[in-house]
Protein backbone atom coordinates (compact mmCIF):
# COMPACT_ATOMS: atom_id res chain seq x y z
CA UNK A 1 0.00 0.00 0.00
CA UNK A 2 2.78 2.39 0.91
CA UNK A 3 4.70 1.40 -2.16
CA UNK A 4 1.79 1.85 -4.48
CA UNK A 5 1.02 5.30 -3.14
CA UNK A 6 4.64 6.28 -3.35
CA UNK A 7 4.70 5.08 -6.93
CA UNK A 8 1.78 7.28 -7.89
CA UNK A 9 3.01 10.34 -6.10
CA UNK A 10 6.55 10.28 -7.32
CA UNK A 11 6.12 8.62 -10.64
CA UNK A 12 9.18 10.47 -11.77
CA UNK A 13 12.15 8.97 -10.03
CA UNK A 14 10.98 5.41 -10.39
CA UNK A 15 9.83 5.77 -13.93
CA UNK A 16 13.00 7.44 -15.14
CA UNK A 17 14.99 4.54 -13.85
CA UNK A 18 13.35 2.21 -16.33
CA UNK A 19 12.03 4.55 -18.96
CA UNK A 20 14.45 3.23 -21.53
CA UNK A 21 13.19 -0.31 -21.26
CA UNK A 22 10.01 0.26 -23.24
CA UNK A 23 11.26 1.27 -26.63
CA UNK A 24 14.82 2.24 -26.03
CA UNK A 25 15.72 1.39 -29.61
CA UNK A 26 13.44 4.15 -30.81
CA UNK A 27 14.42 6.80 -28.31
CA UNK A 28 17.49 8.97 -27.99
CA UNK A 29 17.83 8.50 -24.27
CA UNK A 30 18.62 5.82 -21.74
CA UNK A 31 17.40 5.32 -18.23
CA UNK A 32 20.86 6.24 -16.92
CA UNK A 33 20.84 9.51 -18.84
CA UNK A 34 17.43 10.41 -17.52
CA UNK A 35 18.40 9.55 -13.98
CA UNK A 36 21.44 11.77 -14.30
CA UNK A 37 19.43 14.62 -15.76
CA UNK A 38 16.60 14.57 -13.28
CA UNK A 39 18.03 12.85 -10.21
CA UNK A 40 16.53 13.98 -6.92
CA UNK A 41 18.65 12.38 -4.18
CA UNK A 42 16.44 13.58 -1.32
CA UNK A 43 13.47 11.70 -2.76
CA UNK A 44 15.21 8.41 -2.19
CA UNK A 45 16.51 5.56 -4.27
CA UNK A 46 14.63 4.15 -7.25
CA UNK A 47 12.98 0.83 -6.54
CA UNK A 48 14.10 -2.26 -8.41
CA UNK A 49 12.12 -3.88 -11.18
CA UNK A 50 11.52 -6.85 -8.87
CA UNK A 51 10.17 -4.59 -6.13
CA UNK A 52 7.86 -2.90 -8.62
CA UNK A 53 6.55 -6.27 -9.73
CA UNK A 54 5.56 -7.12 -6.17
CA UNK A 55 3.31 -4.08 -5.87
CA UNK A 56 -0.37 -4.96 -5.81
CA UNK A 57 -1.90 -2.81 -8.50
CA UNK A 58 -5.49 -3.59 -7.61
CA UNK A 59 -7.81 -0.98 -6.12
CA UNK A 60 -7.61 -1.19 -2.35
CA UNK A 61 -10.81 -1.90 -0.38
CA UNK A 62 -10.73 1.51 1.27
CA UNK A 63 -10.46 3.22 -2.08
CA UNK A 64 -6.90 4.40 -1.48
CA UNK A 65 -4.24 3.97 -4.07
CA UNK A 66 -6.47 4.02 -7.13
CA UNK A 67 -3.70 2.87 -9.43
CA UNK A 68 -3.40 3.65 -13.11
CA UNK A 69 -3.88 0.12 -14.41
CA UNK A 70 -6.94 -0.90 -12.47
CA UNK A 71 -8.65 2.46 -11.90
CA UNK A 72 -7.92 5.20 -14.39
CA UNK A 73 -10.49 5.37 -17.22
CA UNK A 74 -8.25 6.87 -19.93
CA UNK A 75 -4.61 6.26 -20.92
CA UNK A 76 -4.36 9.75 -22.40
CA UNK A 77 -4.75 11.16 -18.87
CA UNK A 78 -1.33 9.71 -18.08
CA UNK A 79 0.33 11.50 -21.00
CA UNK A 80 -1.39 14.75 -20.00
CA UNK A 81 -0.27 14.49 -16.38
CA UNK A 82 3.31 13.52 -17.12
CA UNK A 83 3.59 16.35 -19.64
CA UNK A 84 2.16 18.87 -17.20
CA UNK A 85 3.71 17.84 -13.93
CA UNK A 86 6.82 15.71 -14.46
CA UNK A 87 9.62 15.48 -13.66
CA UNK A 88 8.79 16.41 -10.10
CA UNK A 89 11.47 19.07 -9.74
CA UNK A 90 11.43 20.33 -13.33
CA UNK A 91 7.86 20.02 -14.61
CA UNK A 92 7.33 20.59 -18.30
CA UNK A 93 10.92 19.77 -19.26
CA UNK A 94 10.22 16.49 -21.06
CA UNK A 95 10.07 16.22 -24.83
CA UNK A 96 7.00 14.64 -26.42
CA UNK A 97 8.98 11.45 -27.12
CA UNK A 98 10.14 11.21 -23.52
CA UNK A 99 6.57 11.76 -22.36
CA UNK A 100 5.27 8.99 -24.61
CA UNK A 101 8.05 6.69 -23.35
CA UNK A 102 7.19 7.32 -19.71
CA UNK A 103 3.50 6.87 -20.45
CA UNK A 104 4.32 3.54 -22.08
CA UNK A 105 6.47 2.53 -19.14
CA UNK A 106 3.78 3.20 -16.54
CA UNK A 107 1.17 1.38 -18.66
CA UNK A 108 3.61 -1.53 -18.96
CA UNK A 109 4.29 -1.91 -15.22
CA UNK A 110 0.54 -1.71 -14.71
CA UNK A 111 0.09 -4.67 -17.09
CA UNK A 112 -2.01 -2.63 -19.51
CA UNK A 113 0.31 -3.05 -22.51
CA UNK A 114 3.10 -5.50 -23.41
CA UNK A 115 6.72 -4.36 -23.29
CA UNK A 116 6.90 -4.42 -27.07
CA UNK A 117 4.11 -1.93 -27.70
CA UNK A 118 5.14 1.45 -29.04
CA UNK A 119 3.05 4.29 -27.68
CA UNK A 120 2.53 7.37 -29.82
CA UNK A 121 -0.25 9.84 -30.60
CA UNK A 122 -2.40 7.31 -32.47
CA UNK A 123 -1.79 4.18 -30.43
CA UNK A 124 -2.20 5.94 -27.07
CA UNK A 125 -5.69 7.14 -27.90
CA UNK A 126 -6.61 3.60 -29.01
CA UNK A 127 -5.66 1.95 -25.70
CA UNK A 128 -8.76 0.86 -23.78
CA UNK A 129 -8.06 0.91 -20.06
CA UNK A 130 -9.29 -2.11 -18.06
CA UNK A 131 -11.58 0.04 -15.89
CA UNK A 132 -12.91 2.15 -18.77
CA UNK A 133 -16.51 1.17 -17.99
CA UNK A 134 -16.12 1.53 -14.23
CA UNK A 135 -17.32 5.12 -14.17
CA UNK A 136 -20.72 6.77 -14.18
CA UNK A 137 -21.72 10.42 -14.00
CA UNK A 138 -22.40 11.64 -10.51
CA UNK A 139 -25.78 13.08 -9.58
CA UNK A 140 -24.10 16.50 -9.44
CA UNK A 141 -22.91 16.31 -13.03
CA UNK A 142 -26.26 14.97 -14.26
CA UNK A 143 -28.07 17.75 -12.48
CA UNK A 144 -25.84 20.44 -13.96
CA UNK A 145 -26.04 18.90 -17.44
CA UNK A 146 -29.83 18.65 -17.40
CA UNK A 147 -30.11 22.27 -16.33
CA UNK A 148 -27.88 23.39 -19.17
CA UNK A 149 -29.97 21.71 -21.89
Amino acid at each position, binding site marked *: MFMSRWLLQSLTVIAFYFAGTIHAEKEQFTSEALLKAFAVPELGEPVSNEELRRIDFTVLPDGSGLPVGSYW*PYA*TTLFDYIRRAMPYTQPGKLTDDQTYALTAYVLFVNDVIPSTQVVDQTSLAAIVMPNRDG*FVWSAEVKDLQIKSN
Partner: protein
Amino acid sequence: MPLSILLEEAGVKPEGKWVVADGADAAVLIRSVPLRKIMDDAIVALYQNGERLRPANGYPMRLFLPGWEGNASIKWLRSLKVTSQPAMSKNETSKYSDLDTAGQAQLFTFAMGVKSVITSPSPGLSLHQPGLYQISGMAWSGSGRIVQVEVSADGGQSWAQAQLDQHVLPKCVTRFRAAWRWQYLSRQCDTGMGG
Protein backbone atom coordinates in the same frame (compact mmCIF):
# COMPACT_ATOMS: atom_id res chain seq x y z
CA MET B 1 -15.60 39.46 -11.77
CA PRO B 2 -18.49 37.08 -12.59
CA LEU B 3 -17.26 34.65 -15.22
CA SER B 4 -20.66 34.74 -16.91
CA ILE B 5 -19.93 38.34 -17.98
CA LEU B 6 -16.59 37.36 -19.52
CA LEU B 7 -18.06 34.36 -21.36
CA GLU B 8 -21.06 36.32 -22.61
CA GLU B 9 -18.63 38.93 -23.88
CA ALA B 10 -16.48 36.28 -25.59
CA GLY B 11 -19.45 34.26 -26.86
CA VAL B 12 -19.97 30.54 -26.22
CA LYS B 13 -20.89 28.14 -29.04
CA PRO B 14 -23.95 25.92 -28.44
CA GLU B 15 -21.79 22.77 -28.18
CA GLY B 16 -19.81 24.26 -25.30
CA LYS B 17 -20.83 22.37 -22.15
CA TRP B 18 -17.71 22.39 -19.98
CA VAL B 19 -15.05 24.87 -18.99
CA VAL B 20 -11.55 23.48 -18.49
CA ALA B 21 -9.45 25.65 -16.18
CA ASP B 22 -5.75 25.31 -15.54
CA GLY B 23 -3.36 27.04 -13.19
CA ALA B 24 0.26 28.10 -13.34
CA ASP B 25 1.45 25.98 -10.41
CA ALA B 26 4.14 23.35 -10.91
CA ALA B 27 1.65 20.60 -11.72
CA VAL B 28 -0.44 22.93 -13.94
CA LEU B 29 -3.50 21.72 -12.04
CA ILE B 30 -6.49 21.30 -14.31
CA ARG B 31 -10.18 20.79 -13.54
CA SER B 32 -13.28 20.55 -15.72
CA VAL B 33 -16.35 22.49 -14.62
CA PRO B 34 -19.82 22.20 -16.16
CA LEU B 35 -20.67 25.41 -18.04
CA ARG B 36 -23.87 25.69 -16.00
CA LYS B 37 -21.90 26.20 -12.78
CA ILE B 38 -19.62 28.73 -14.46
CA MET B 39 -22.58 30.79 -15.69
CA ASP B 40 -24.44 30.38 -12.40
CA ASP B 41 -22.07 31.79 -9.79
CA ALA B 42 -18.39 31.33 -10.73
CA ILE B 43 -16.10 34.33 -10.42
CA VAL B 44 -12.54 35.19 -11.31
CA ALA B 45 -11.16 36.57 -8.06
CA LEU B 46 -8.44 39.22 -7.98
CA TYR B 47 -9.04 40.43 -4.44
CA GLN B 48 -9.78 38.84 -1.09
CA ASN B 49 -10.83 40.76 2.02
CA GLY B 50 -10.08 44.10 0.39
CA GLU B 51 -6.54 43.37 -0.72
CA ARG B 52 -4.99 41.76 -3.76
CA LEU B 53 -4.86 37.98 -3.61
CA ARG B 54 -1.77 36.79 -1.82
CA PRO B 55 0.69 34.55 -3.70
CA ALA B 56 -0.32 31.43 -1.79
CA ASN B 57 -3.97 32.10 -2.59
CA GLY B 58 -3.45 32.28 -6.34
CA TYR B 59 -2.14 35.77 -7.21
CA PRO B 60 -2.78 37.42 -9.61
CA MET B 61 -6.12 35.70 -10.13
CA ARG B 62 -7.97 32.52 -9.35
CA LEU B 63 -11.15 30.79 -10.27
CA PHE B 64 -13.66 30.72 -7.43
CA LEU B 65 -16.55 28.26 -7.38
CA PRO B 66 -18.82 28.99 -4.40
CA GLY B 67 -19.76 25.93 -2.37
CA TRP B 68 -17.43 23.55 -4.17
CA GLU B 69 -14.38 21.77 -2.85
CA GLY B 70 -11.43 24.14 -2.79
CA ASN B 71 -9.26 22.25 -5.27
CA ALA B 72 -11.69 23.07 -8.08
CA SER B 73 -11.13 26.80 -7.58
CA ILE B 74 -7.97 26.80 -9.68
CA LYS B 75 -5.30 29.14 -8.34
CA TRP B 76 -2.85 31.17 -10.48
CA LEU B 77 -5.45 30.85 -13.23
CA ARG B 78 -3.76 30.90 -16.63
CA SER B 79 -6.38 29.63 -19.05
CA LEU B 80 -10.06 28.75 -19.48
CA LYS B 81 -11.21 26.64 -22.39
CA VAL B 82 -14.84 25.99 -23.28
CA THR B 83 -15.20 22.39 -24.47
CA SER B 84 -17.90 19.87 -25.29
CA GLN B 85 -16.43 17.21 -22.96
CA PRO B 86 -14.55 17.26 -19.66
CA ALA B 87 -10.74 16.95 -19.89
CA MET B 88 -10.62 13.77 -17.74
CA SER B 89 -7.49 15.04 -16.03
CA LYS B 90 -5.55 13.00 -13.49
CA ASN B 91 -6.98 14.57 -10.36
CA GLU B 92 -10.59 14.69 -11.46
CA THR B 93 -10.60 11.04 -12.55
CA SER B 94 -8.31 9.42 -9.98
CA LYS B 95 -8.82 11.62 -6.91
CA TYR B 96 -12.09 13.47 -7.19
CA SER B 97 -14.19 10.52 -8.25
CA ASP B 98 -16.15 8.58 -5.64
CA LEU B 99 -15.59 4.84 -5.63
CA ASP B 100 -18.46 2.80 -4.16
CA THR B 101 -18.21 -0.63 -2.58
CA ALA B 102 -19.44 -2.31 -5.77
CA GLY B 103 -16.35 -1.01 -7.60
CA GLN B 104 -18.11 1.66 -9.64
CA ALA B 105 -16.92 5.24 -9.44
CA GLN B 106 -18.83 8.45 -9.89
CA LEU B 107 -17.35 11.34 -11.86
CA PHE B 108 -16.85 14.00 -10.50
CA THR B 109 -16.78 15.26 -6.91
CA PHE B 110 -17.76 18.93 -6.82
CA ALA B 111 -19.79 20.20 -3.87
CA MET B 112 -18.28 20.36 -0.41
CA GLY B 113 -20.46 18.02 1.63
CA VAL B 114 -21.95 18.60 5.08
CA LYS B 115 -19.36 19.61 7.67
CA SER B 116 -19.20 21.10 11.13
CA VAL B 117 -16.63 21.94 13.76
CA ILE B 118 -16.89 22.96 17.39
CA THR B 119 -14.57 25.90 18.01
CA SER B 120 -15.31 26.28 21.74
CA PRO B 121 -14.63 24.52 24.02
CA SER B 122 -11.48 23.43 22.27
CA PRO B 123 -8.11 21.87 23.10
CA GLY B 124 -6.00 24.37 25.01
CA LEU B 125 -8.98 26.01 26.69
CA SER B 126 -9.11 25.33 30.43
CA LEU B 127 -12.47 24.57 31.97
CA HIS B 128 -11.66 24.73 35.67
CA GLN B 129 -14.89 23.48 37.17
CA PRO B 130 -18.30 22.09 36.27
CA GLY B 131 -20.84 24.74 35.34
CA LEU B 132 -22.55 26.45 32.46
CA TYR B 133 -20.54 26.90 29.29
CA GLN B 134 -21.33 27.96 25.77
CA ILE B 135 -20.63 25.52 22.97
CA SER B 136 -19.94 27.33 19.72
CA GLY B 137 -18.95 26.25 16.25
CA MET B 138 -19.38 26.53 12.52
CA ALA B 139 -21.63 24.43 10.31
CA TRP B 140 -21.79 23.91 6.55
CA SER B 141 -24.65 22.12 4.77
CA GLY B 142 -23.23 21.64 1.28
CA SER B 143 -26.73 21.99 -0.16
CA GLY B 144 -28.06 25.41 0.72
CA ARG B 145 -29.19 27.40 3.70
CA ILE B 146 -28.85 25.61 7.04
CA VAL B 147 -32.19 25.02 8.76
CA GLN B 148 -30.99 23.64 12.07
CA VAL B 149 -27.94 22.40 13.95
CA GLU B 150 -28.05 19.93 16.81
CA VAL B 151 -25.31 19.38 19.38
CA SER B 152 -24.64 16.32 21.53
CA ALA B 153 -22.58 16.41 24.73
CA ASP B 154 -22.93 12.69 25.46
CA GLY B 155 -21.50 11.02 22.41
CA GLY B 156 -24.70 11.13 20.39
CA GLN B 157 -27.14 9.65 22.91
CA SER B 158 -29.11 12.89 23.14
CA TRP B 159 -29.18 16.02 21.04
CA ALA B 160 -30.05 19.64 21.74
CA GLN B 161 -30.95 22.24 19.17
CA ALA B 162 -28.38 24.99 18.75
CA GLN B 163 -29.15 28.60 17.96
CA LEU B 164 -28.01 29.95 14.64
CA ASP B 165 -26.46 33.37 14.31
CA GLN B 166 -28.12 35.83 12.00
CA HIS B 167 -27.39 36.03 8.28
CA VAL B 168 -27.75 32.36 7.46
CA LEU B 169 -26.57 32.29 3.84
CA PRO B 170 -26.85 29.44 1.31
CA LYS B 171 -23.13 29.18 0.52
CA CYS B 172 -21.47 30.31 3.71
CA VAL B 173 -20.50 28.64 7.00
CA THR B 174 -23.02 29.35 9.73
CA ARG B 175 -22.11 30.07 13.35
CA PHE B 176 -24.09 28.11 15.96
CA ARG B 177 -24.22 28.33 19.76
CA ALA B 178 -25.66 26.09 22.46
CA ALA B 179 -25.66 26.18 26.24
CA TRP B 180 -23.94 23.25 27.95
CA ARG B 181 -23.98 22.38 31.62
CA TRP B 182 -20.89 20.40 32.54
CA GLN B 183 -22.17 18.41 35.49
CA TYR B 184 -19.36 16.11 36.51
CA LEU B 185 -15.63 15.74 36.63
CA SER B 186 -13.95 12.62 35.44
CA ARG B 187 -10.64 11.58 33.99
CA GLN B 188 -12.22 11.42 30.54
CA CYS B 189 -13.63 14.91 30.79
CA ASP B 190 -10.33 16.28 31.98
CA THR B 191 -8.62 14.84 28.96
CA GLY B 192 -11.35 15.61 26.45
CA MET B 193 -11.76 19.23 27.37
CA GLY B 194 -8.15 20.06 27.95
CA GLY B 195 -8.75 20.92 31.61
